C-alpha cells in the first residue's frame, strides 16, 4: 500500500488533473465579445439538440441558430427568403416541385452539404412518422429525390401547393451522421452538426449559449459572437429583464406593449398581425345552427370596442373577411366593411324568428326564452375575458344573455375541440402566408369530428360543400388567378354563413431593447414576421442584428 512508486504516480495524476482543470477553465473564460441575449418566459427541459423532437422542447437554438431549412416564408406577407434552397418551381400539373440547393455550404464538421442531405432529411421523416409534425407525408407528398448535387425533386400523388410553407421550414440534417440515428424521437443529439450561423456551446437550466460559426456560408455574418437564452417563469419577469437591458429580445405576450415602450427610450416592440382572434359559434347546437341567428349576433358585436378594450389600443379590430392586413391587397377583391349595427341586428334577429318578450329578452323559435349562453375563454386570460365582457354587453342590447366560462388549458382546448361549448373565443387554429391556412384549418371536413370526439381544428364544426370544393381548388393549383377566385368564394361564403365572428387581429409579440444592438425587424423593414425565438424566422434576426 505504501509503495512510493504508487504515491509518485498519484502525485503525477493529481498534478495533471489540476493542470487540465486550469486549462479547461482558461478555455472557458474566453468570453465572446458581443453577446445577444434572448429571454423566454418558460423554462426548457433537459439538454436535447434534436431539431425533430416532436413538441416544443427542442432546445431553442436548434431550430433558429444551428440548423437551417430550405426557405423562410414570411407569414405576414408571404415573401419567400432563400436559405439552403436558392430557387423553387412547380411543374405545370403541380405534381412536381423542383428546388435548387445552395452550393459551397459546409456542415460544421467540415463535410460538404448537398441536395442529398436535404432528400435524406425529408425521407427520414417518412420513415419515422412520429417526427412528421407538419404531416408532409400525409398531405399528398409521395417521393423526394436528389437528382444531382444541387437539385431536389418533390413528387406528389395529389397536388398540394400550400404544403410549400411546411416543406420550406423543415430542418435539414447531415445524412452522414443521421443515417445512424435509429431512435430519433428520443435521441438527444449531444453534439449538433448543422449548417447554421451558430454552433452549440453550453447548456444549463439557467442559460443556453451558442457561438458564432466561423465558417458560415454567408460572408461576414453573423455580426454577433454569441447568442444566449435565459429563462424566467412569467411574462412579467421576462419584461423586467428586457427593461433592465439584461435581455435584448424576447417573444413575450405582455398585455400592454405601449406602456412597455414608454418605460425606456431603448424599449420598442413590433407586433405585426399574423393571426386573428375569433368568436367561434358551436354550429351543431341550436340556435347557433341557424345562420340567421349567427348573423344577427355578429352584427350586434362592436369589434372595434372589443379590440380597444382588450389590447389597450395596441391591436386593431379584425377584418370581417378574416384576412390579415398584410395579405388583403393580394387576396381580397373588395375591402370588407364592418357589419356592426345594433338596430339592424335587432331587426335581423326578429326577422329570423327570434322575437323579444315584454321585458326585452329574446325568445327562441319555439317561443320559449333563450338560455344564457356561455362564452368559453381560458382561465385568467385577461384579453379574452375582456373581449367576452364587451361581447356580453353588446349582446345584452339585443336581448341575448351571456355568461363568461373560464376554463384551464386542458378544459378550454378540450371544450372547443369536443364541441361542448356555446360560443368560445380563440385564435385561428391554422395560419400562414396566405389566407388558405386559416380557412383550411377552420372549415376543412378532415379537421372536424362528431360532437364528443376531438376535432383537430374545425372548432365550429362548420362544413360547406362550396368551401370544401374551393379549398381543394386552391390547394391543387399554383396559378395565382385560380387561387384568387377560390379564395373569393371561400371568403364570401364564410361571411354570408358567419360560423364565426373575426374579433381582433392577433400578433407576433416581438419585444426589443435596442440599447446595444441595431438591425431589429420593424414595419419598415419586415425581413421576418417578428418571429418567436425558436423558429427559423428568428435566424434572420440573429443574422441581422449588429452591435452598436
Amino acid at each position, binding site marked *: 500500500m505504501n509503495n512510493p512508486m504508487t504515491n509518485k504516480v498519484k502525485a503525477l495524476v493529481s498534478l495533471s488533473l489540476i493542470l487540465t482543470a486550469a486549462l479547461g*477553465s482558461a478555455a*472557458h473564460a474566453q468570453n465572446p465579445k458581443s453577446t445577444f441575449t434572448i429571454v423566454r418566459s*418558460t423554462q*426548457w*427541459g*433537459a439538454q*436535447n439538440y434534436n431539431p425533430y*423532437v*416532436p*413538441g*416544443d*422542447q427542442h432546445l431553442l437554438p436548434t431550430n433558429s441558430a444551428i440548423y437551417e431549412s430550405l426557405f423562410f416564408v414570411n407569414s405576414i406577407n408571404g415573401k419567400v427568403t432563400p436559405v439552403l434552397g436558392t430557387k423553387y418551381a412547380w411543374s405545370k400539373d403541380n405534381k412536381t416541385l423542383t428546388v435548387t440547393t445552395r452550393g459551397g455550404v459546409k456542415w460544421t464538421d467540415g463535410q460538404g452539404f448537398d441536395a442529398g442531405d436535404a432528400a435524406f432529411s425529408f425521407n427520414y421523416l417518412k420513415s419515422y*412518422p*412520429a417526427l*412528421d*409534425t*407538419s*404531416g408532409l407525408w*400525409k398531405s399528398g407528398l409521395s417521393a423526394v429525390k436528389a437528382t444531382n448535387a444541387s437539385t431536389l425533386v418533390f413528387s406528389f400523388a395529389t397536388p398540394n401547393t400550400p404544403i410549400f410553407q*411546411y416543406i420550406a421550414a423543415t430542418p435539414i440534417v447531415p445524412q452522414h451522421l443521421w443515417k445512424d440515428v435509429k431512435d430519433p*424521437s*428520443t435521441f*438527444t443529439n449531444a453534439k449538433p452538426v448543422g449548417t447554421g450561423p451558430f454552433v452549440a456551446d*453550453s447548456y444549463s*437550466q*439557467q*442559460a443556453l*449559449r451558442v457561438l458564432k460559426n466561423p465558417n458560415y456560408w454567408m460572408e461576414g455574418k453573423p455580426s454577433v459572437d454569441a447568442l*444566449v437564452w*435565459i*429563462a*424566467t*417563469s*412569467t411574462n412579467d*419577469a421576462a419584461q423586467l*429583464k428586457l427593461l*433592465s437591458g439584461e435581455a435584448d429580445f424576447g417573444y413575450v405576450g405582455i398585455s400592454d406593449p405601449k406602456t412597455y415602450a414608454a418605460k425606456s427610450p431603448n424599449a420598442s416592440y413590433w407586433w405585426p398581425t399574423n*393571426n386573428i382572434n375569433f368568436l367561434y359559434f358551436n354550429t351543431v347546437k341550436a340556435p347557433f345552427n341557424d345562420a340567421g341567428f349567427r348573423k344577427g349576433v355578429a352584427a350586434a358585436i362592436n369589434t372595434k370596442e372589443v379590440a380597444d378594450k382588450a389590447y389597450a389600443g395596441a391591436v386593431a379590430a379584425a377584418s370581417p373577411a378574416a384576412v390579415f392586413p398584410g395579405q388583403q391587397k393580394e387576396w381580397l377583391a373588395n375591402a370588407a366593411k364592418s357589419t356592426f349595427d345594433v338596430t339592424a341586428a335587432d331587426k335581423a334577429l326578429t326577422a329570423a324568428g327570434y322575437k323579444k318578450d315584454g321585458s326585452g329578452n329574446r325568445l327562441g323559435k319555439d317561443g320559449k326564452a333563450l338560455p344564457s349562453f356561455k362564452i368559453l375563454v381560458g382561465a385568467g386570460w385577461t384579453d379574452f375575458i375582456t373581449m367576452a365582457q364587451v361581447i356580453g354587453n353588446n349582446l345584452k342590447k339585443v336581448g341575448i344573455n351571456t355568461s363568461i366560462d373560464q376554463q*384551464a*388549458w*386542458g*378544459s*378550454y*382546448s*378540450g*371544450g372547443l*375541440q369536443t364541441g361542448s361549448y356555446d360560443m368560445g373565443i*380563440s*385564435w385561428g*387554429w*391554422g*395560419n400562414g402566408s396566405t389566407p388558405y391556412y386559416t380557412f383550411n*384549418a377552420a372549415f376543412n371536413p378532415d*379537421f372536424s369530428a362528431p360532437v364528443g370526439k*376531438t376535432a*383537430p*381544428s374545425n372548432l365550429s364544426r362548420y362544413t360547406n360543400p362550396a368551401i370544401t370544393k374551393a379549398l381543394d381548388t386552391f390547394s391543387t393549383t399554383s396559378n395565382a388567378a385560380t387561387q384568387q377566385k377560390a379564395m373569393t368564394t371561400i371568403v364570401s361564403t364564410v361571411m354570408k354563413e358567419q360560423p364565426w365572428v373575426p374579433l381582433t387581429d*392577433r400578433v407576433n409579440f416581438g419585444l426589443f431593447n435596442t440599447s446595444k444592438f441595431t438591425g431589429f425587424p420593424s414595419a419598415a423593414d419586415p425581413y421576418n414576421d417578428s418571429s*418567436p425565438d425558436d*423558429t427559423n424566422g428568428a435566424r434572420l434576426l440573429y443574422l441581422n442584428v449588429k452591435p452598436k
Partner: protein
Amino acid sequence: MSYLLRKLGIFVFTLWVAATLNFVLPRLVPGDPVSVMLAKYQGRLDPAAVDALKIAYGLNDLGSPVSQYFSYLGNLLRGDFGRSISLFPTPVIDVVRMALPYTLGLIGVTTIISFVLGSALGLYSGWRRGGVVADGLTPVALFLNAMPYFWFGLILLYVFAFQLKWFPLSGALDPFPGDTYSAGWWSSLLRHAALPVFTILVTSVGGWLITMRNNVINVAGEDYLAFARAKGLTERRIISRYVLRNALLPSFTAFGMALGFVVGGSILTEIVFSYPGLGFYLYQSVTNLDYPLMQAIFFFIALAVLLANLLVDFVNVLLDPRIREGQA
C-alpha cells in the same frame, strides 16, 4: 414493537392508496395532452401533427384502463416514471433530479431554520412572559404569519431586486456562474436564494413562535416545574430538561409534516421568484396535462409526507416515554 409494526403497515397501505389515487385523478381532468399542445402552438402547428405527436408520446395505443393501471404499478416499483410530455423526451426522473436539489436546498433548509428560530423565539417569549419584548413578539408574529407570502415576496422583489438591484430578479443561478461548487457559483446561488429564503422565513417563523409560546406557557403551569424550582434546580436545567422537552413534542409532529411537504416545494414562492424547484414543475405539469410528470411529483410528495410521518412516529417513541409504555 407492535406499535412500530402497526405504523409500518399503515404506511404501506397509505402509499398504495396514494399511488392509486395518483393514477385515477389526472385521468379525470378533461382534455388530452396532445390537444393542449396543439392549442398551445396557437396555429403554428399543422392539425395533421396530431397523429405524429400521438405516436411520439405513445398515446396512440394505450390499452384498457386496467392494463394501464397494472403497468403503472409495475413501472412504479421499478422506479420508471416514463417520459415527460411537456418536456418531451426528457425522462420524468431526470426532471425530478434536476429540480429536487433546488427545492430541498431552498425550502428544506428554510423550514429547518424557521423551525429552530421560531421555536427559540417562542421559548423566550413564553418563558419571559410579561416582558415588553417577549409580549411584543406575539402580535408581530401573528401579523407576519397572516401576511400572504407571495405578496410579501413580490414587494421584496420590487424594492430590492427591481428598484435597488441588490438581488437578482429570478432564477436559482446566474446564466454563467462558473464551475459548479466554485466560489463564484456559491455566491451566485446564495444571492439568488436570499430573497426567497427571507420571504419564507419572515412569513413562517411566526407560526412556530406562537405554537411554541403556547406550549411553553402550558408547561410553565405544571406542578413538576414548581417542584423543580423548589428543589433549587438552575434555570438553565429547568428549561432544557423539563420545559423544552415537553413543549417541543406537539411542535415536533408539525415539523415532521412540514418536512414532508418540503418535497412538494413551495409553489407560490417558486413561481414568484422563478425558482426552478419541484413546485414550479408541478404547476407546469398541471397546466400542460403532463400526466407522467404530475404523477411522479405527486408520488414523491405522498412518499415524503408519509415517510416524514413514519419518522415522527418513530422519533416520538424516543422522545415520549408514554408512547413507549403503550399508553398513547
